[in-house]
C-alpha cells in the first residue's frame, strides 16, 4: 500500500488526530502564554526574582521531555492530563524568559518619559513597555509552539491525544504492513502542523506588532 493510499484510507482518523494535536498545542500554548507573560511582568522589575525564574526555567528545560512525562505518570496517570501538563510546563519556559528579556530591554528613558507625561505605572506597562517588548515575547511564544509540537508527539507514549499515536502504532507494527506508512504520516503530519503554526505567527506578528516598533 502506498503512502497516499494509506492516508486516503484513513482520512477521517488522520484529520481527527491532526485537529486534536493542533488544538492540544494551541490550548497549552495559550495557557502558557498567559501565565508566562504574567510571571514575566511580575518579576522583571526585581532582578533577583527574575533571575530565579529564568534559572529555574533553564533547569526544567534541560530535563528531557520523556523523563518529565514519565515523572507525571505516577501522579496523573496516563492520558490527556500528563500530556497537557508537560507541554504547558515546557511552553512556559521560553515565554517567561523572552518576556523578562523583552521588558528589561525597553529603553528606560521611554519609561521615564511615559511616567513624566503622567502615565501611571500600569498604564506605562500596558501602553509603552508591553507593546515595545511584544516582538520578543512573540518569538518566545513561537519557540514554545514548536517545542509543544514535538513534545505532543512523545506524549502519545503516555496515551496522549494527537498524531504521535501514528508514530507509536507504526513502531508497534514493526516489520508489518503499513508500519512505515503510519510512522511517516505521523511525522510528516506533525512537521506540517508545526510549519502551519509558524506561518500563523508570522501573520499574527504582522497584525499585532505596532508599526513603529517593526524593524
Amino acid at each position: 500500500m502506498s503512502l497516499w493510499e494509506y492516508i486516503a484510507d484513513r482520512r477521517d482518523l488522520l484529520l481527527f488526530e491532526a485537529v486534536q494535536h493542533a488544538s492540544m498545542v494551541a490550548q497549552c500554548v495559550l495557557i502558557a502564554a498567559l501565565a508566562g507573560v504574567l510571571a514575566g511582568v511580575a518579576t522583571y522589575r526585581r532582578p533577583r526574582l527574575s533571575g530565579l525564574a529564568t534559572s529555574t526555567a533553564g533547569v526544567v528545560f534541560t530535563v528531557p521531555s520523556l523523563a518529565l512525562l514519565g515523572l507525571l505518570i505516577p501522579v496523573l496517570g496516563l492520558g490527556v492530563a500528563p500530556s497537557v501538563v508537560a507541554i504547558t510546563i515546557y511552553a512556559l519556559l521560553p515565554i517567561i524568559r523572552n518576556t523578562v528579556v523583552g521588558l528589561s530591554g525597553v529603553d528606560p528613558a521611554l519609561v521615564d518619559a511615559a511616567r513624566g507625561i503622567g502615565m501611571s505605572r500600569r498604564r506605562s506597562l500596558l501602553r509603552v513597555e508591553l507593546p515595545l517588548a511584544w516582538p520578543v515575547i512573540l518569538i518566545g511564544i513561537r519557540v514554545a509552539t514548536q517545542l509543544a509540537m514535538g513534545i505532543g508527539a512523545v506524549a502519545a507514549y503516555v496515551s496522549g491525544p494527537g498524531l504521535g499515536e501514528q508514530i507509536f502504532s507504526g513502531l508497534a507494527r514493526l516489520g508489518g504492513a503499513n508500519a512505515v506508512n503510519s510512522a511517516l504520516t505521523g511525522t510528516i503530519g506533525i512537521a506540517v502542523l508545526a510549519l502551519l503554526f509558524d506561518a500563523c505567527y508570522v501573520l499574527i506578528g504582522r497584525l499585532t506588532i505596532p508599526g513603529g516598533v517593526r524593524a
Partner: protein
Amino acid sequence: MTLTESAEPATPAPEPRLGRSFWLALSPLCYLAIGAAMIVYTQVTGLDSLERNSLGLGFIVRRTWEHVELVFFSTLLVLAIALPLGVALTRRGLRRATPAVLAVVNLGQATPAVGLVVLLALVFRIGFWIAVAALVAYSLLPALRNTMVGLQQVDPHLVDAGRGIGMSAAGVLFKVELPMAVPVILSGVRTTLVLNVGTASIAAFIGAGGLGDLITAGVSTQRNLVLVTGCVLIAVLALLLDWLGGVAQRYLSPKGLS
C-alpha cells in the same frame, strides 16, 4: 524539542547562567546527590521480582553507560560533520547558499524527534548505531546553524584587518574567525549534548538500550519505582552534561571576548 529554537537567530537557547566558582561546584554536586540518593533508595528498599530485574545495580550502571555512549558518539559525530560543513558553507564560494541551508534547518526543526527515531528503525533495523544515526540526524541541524551564525556574526572589519596585515585566508579563519565564533559554537555544542540526552532516552523505543529502557520497562510492567528511577537518572544526566557544557563554555572561550 528543544531545545529547539525558532527561525529567528535572535533567540538563543535558554541557558542556566553559571555563577561564581562556589555555585559552579554546588549544582553538579546537588544533581549527583539526587542521582545517588535515587540509586541507593532502589538498592535498600524491598523490591518484587519484576522490579529487581530492572533495578539491579549492574543493570542500572550498564543502562547509564549505554546512555552516555549514545550521547558521546552522536555528539562527536555531529561535531565532526557540523564544524567543517559550517566553515565551508560560510566561505566565499558557498556563502550564497546560506539562506537555503538555514531554511532546511528550520524545516528539520519542525520534524519531531520521535518520528525520526522510529522511522529510521522501521526502514533500517533496530539497534545502537541506528539510534546514533537518528540522534545525529536530529541534532546536526541546530549545531550546523550555530556554527554558521557564529562565523557570520564576526565583524567583517576584523576579517578585513586580518587580511590587511597579510594573513592568508586560512590564517584569518583559524586565528580570527574561529576564535571569535567559539562562544556561539560552544553554546551549540551544549545544546547538542542536552538534546542528545533527551533523544537518546527515546532510543529505548527502538531497542538501543540506555536509561529510557527503565521508563519503557516501568510503564509496561506498571512499576512506578522503575519508571521514576529512569526519569530521575535521565534528568540528572542531562543536567550534569549541561553543566559540563557550561564549564567548557566558560573556560574554553577566548579570554578577551567577554
